[in-house]
């Protein structure tokens, strides 16, 4: 299968290891990965902050980058950005009266999957250890991000994948379904409430004794990781793609800059 990677702006700029890990997983399964170079961002920051007009060119760019590329399905290591592509893009196009863009956005949205959704529903991954060689000998807890859980209805797909990683010690996170308080510009506009929500989330994470908290959205993980760092906690965050890509031979680093090698680079 030819799979187009939508890296998402935050992963592209801040967490390239997550995108590299996604490439690695897909190549290990024997698929070809392409990266439509025109891509930038899904635009949900603009939409969710009320800047609909400013969101239009961002959405138009995403649609152009992905409907001109030749691929079977597109994937992003983020529930939130995929939810934006699927649900917000047609609405943004409608808001500016561009019916052609709306139709193209709907078509791109229909072909776009969140990583765990693609792995489980399309590529049939049920055992990460056996099918991907995933190995991660650490105590981990997992935060299911709101948009993956409530907008994409990912259910337990991410948790099932994590449980099937060899060596992992998956600790259940108390109040896992509660929002971490990120909410994009909410974290700045309502910084006090956001911080109060984050404090409860990090306390729950620390209560598990896990070395790190994983999840499917880099933005929530940056928020949670930023809170843990400020509290001086030893616990940190790591995207689930990096845990799935981690192997006995090339383990993912829990902290620091160690790069996960992709299938291509290791050959």
């Amino acid at each position, binding site marked *: 299968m030819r799979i187009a990677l939508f890296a998402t702006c935050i992963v592209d700029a801040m967490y390239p290891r997550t995108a590299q890990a996604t490439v690695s997983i897909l190549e290990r399964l024997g698929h070809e990965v392409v990266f439509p170079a025109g891509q930038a961002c899904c635009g949900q920051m603009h939409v969710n902050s009320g800047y609909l007009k400013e969101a239009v060119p961002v959405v138009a760019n995403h649609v152009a980058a992905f409907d001109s590329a030749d691929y079977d399905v597109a994937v992003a290591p983020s529930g939130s950005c995929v939810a934006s592509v699927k649900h917000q893009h047609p609405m943004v196009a409608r808001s500016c009266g561009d019916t052609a863009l709306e139709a193209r956005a709907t078509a791109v949205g229909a072909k776009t999957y969140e990583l765990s959704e693609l792995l489980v529903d399309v590529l049939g991954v049920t055992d990460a250890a056996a099918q991907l060689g995933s190995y991660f000998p650490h105590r981990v807890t997992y935060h299911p991000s709101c948009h993956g859980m409530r907008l994409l209805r990912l259910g337990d797909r991410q948790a099932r994948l994590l449980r099937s990683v060899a060596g992992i010690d998956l600790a259940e996170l108390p109040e896992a379904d509660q929002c971490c308080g990120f*909410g994009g510009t*909410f974290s700045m506009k309502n910084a006090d409430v956001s911080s109060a929500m984050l404090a409860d989330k990090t306390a729950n994470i620390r209560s598990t004794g896990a070395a790190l908290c994983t999840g499917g959205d880099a933005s929530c993980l940056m928020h949670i990781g930023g809170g843990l760092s400020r509290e001086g906690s030893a616990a940190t965050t790591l995207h689930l793609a990096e845990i799935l890509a981690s192997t006995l031979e090339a383990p993912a680093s829990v902290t620091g*800059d160690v790069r996960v090698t992709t299938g291509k680079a290791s050959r």
Partner: protein
Amino acid sequence: MSTFLGMPSLPVFGSGNLHAAESFPKAAHRELGNAQLRANLGHATHTIRDKRLQVVSELPDWEQLRDAGSAIKENVMARLPELLEQFEANFTARGGVIHWARDADEANAIVAGLIRDTGETEVVKVKSMATQEIGLNEYLEEQGIAAFETDLAELIVQLDHDKPSHILVPAIHKNRTQIRDIFLREMPDADPELTDSPAVLAMAARAHLRRKFLTAKVAVSGANFALADSGTLAVVESEGNGRMCLTLPETLITVMGVEKLLPGWRDLEVFMQLLPRSSTGERMNPYTSLWTGVTEGDGPRNVHLVLLDNGRSAALADEMGRSALHCIRCSACMNVCPVYERTGGHAYGSTYPGPIGAILSPLLTGIEAEENSSLPYASSLCGACYDACPVKINIPDILVHLRSKDVDSKRGTKKLPSQMDVGMKAASWALSSGKRLGLVEKGLPLGRLAAGPDKKISKLPGIAAGWTQSRDIPAPPPESFRSWWAREHGNPNDGVVPPQETATQGKEGQA
């Protein structure tokens, strides 16, 4: 010279207790500092949350019931003028009197006039959101009429000269020790040995209220539902105090928002399943009172209904926002909201707090009224409210819609654009082209430098200071994914189809 006033120009926005007097972040900051409030609210919301989940999971057709509730309400909103007239005809035919009120002032004046006509100066009240919304108690007090709340929690709040902080559990912000202290201080007939046991407190309130029920000649209520096909009104409650007010006095005055209408009895069945489970987490509420006009020798002899608009027509005119009028005031959304759980209801200013309040208040008043434009931002858009709503109001989508209404209403009105305006414009430029984002990402090593040896950024200026008040930002990577990919794979794998194949797709395809 005569002046032709003509039809009022639309929209007529709502007035009364629908406004945030200070911005939500400011009010939230103060409320967050109240540790007792946080503890009370955390305990109460989690208890109701769990109860609701349990009783909802018992019904195999819960999702279909939600769909039905949503569809019935959508139908009502589409046929509102016709249904209101049908209701008026039936209610009047059965001996009731209808009054139409455009806003809070009109409704208050009508109610005060009706009470004055009876010669009474005291009324008992059934718990009602509509009368809270219009500020009826305060208005009546100015007119020399004392209104006594008879719902236990409303009574607590009223005795404490406080405001409700939750639509179903108005005293959710108080625990039983605080309630005992209020009773001892404010209830002249309270036993000085009063303990804080819930049963003892309830008995004290019961004894206090019984005297009011037996002497009151006038009652004021709200209504949960109105059935157009028979002209029937319905009140759903737990304590039975409502039943007392609805049956004992001679005059009954009901104030109801026009959106409470249902076409008929068959529709009520759906809501009688949705409401108790969503609000108190009960399979069935203890008391459902239904009345149709006047019945000789049984109940009140003078039955009035004030039909209240107060911004509802304006909300109905908002295509994206109108489904907020489907709300049946169950409070499930606030019980699951992580923001409400931490700030409590007072932070929202309006009678309607929580997620539904964050959309309903600005829809009723207009987004530009006082500080109501700050309300749609009081959410992380986690979506828990939408999942819990028994009539499937897409609260997150309406929040986003109202945010864009706010941003648009301010475009061109400011002398200087805000930091957020400037940031969003710049981000729109950078994020609408892969090439431009790639250029910006060339600056990542600079951010890395700024982060220093501990590899984190802990203090940022301006609006970003909100982020760094409780979170660090990690040092950026030395290189973006985009740049790594180009190095590793070069151009062939960028997935772009050769130009001749995309000729029909426009020039964006070449980006």
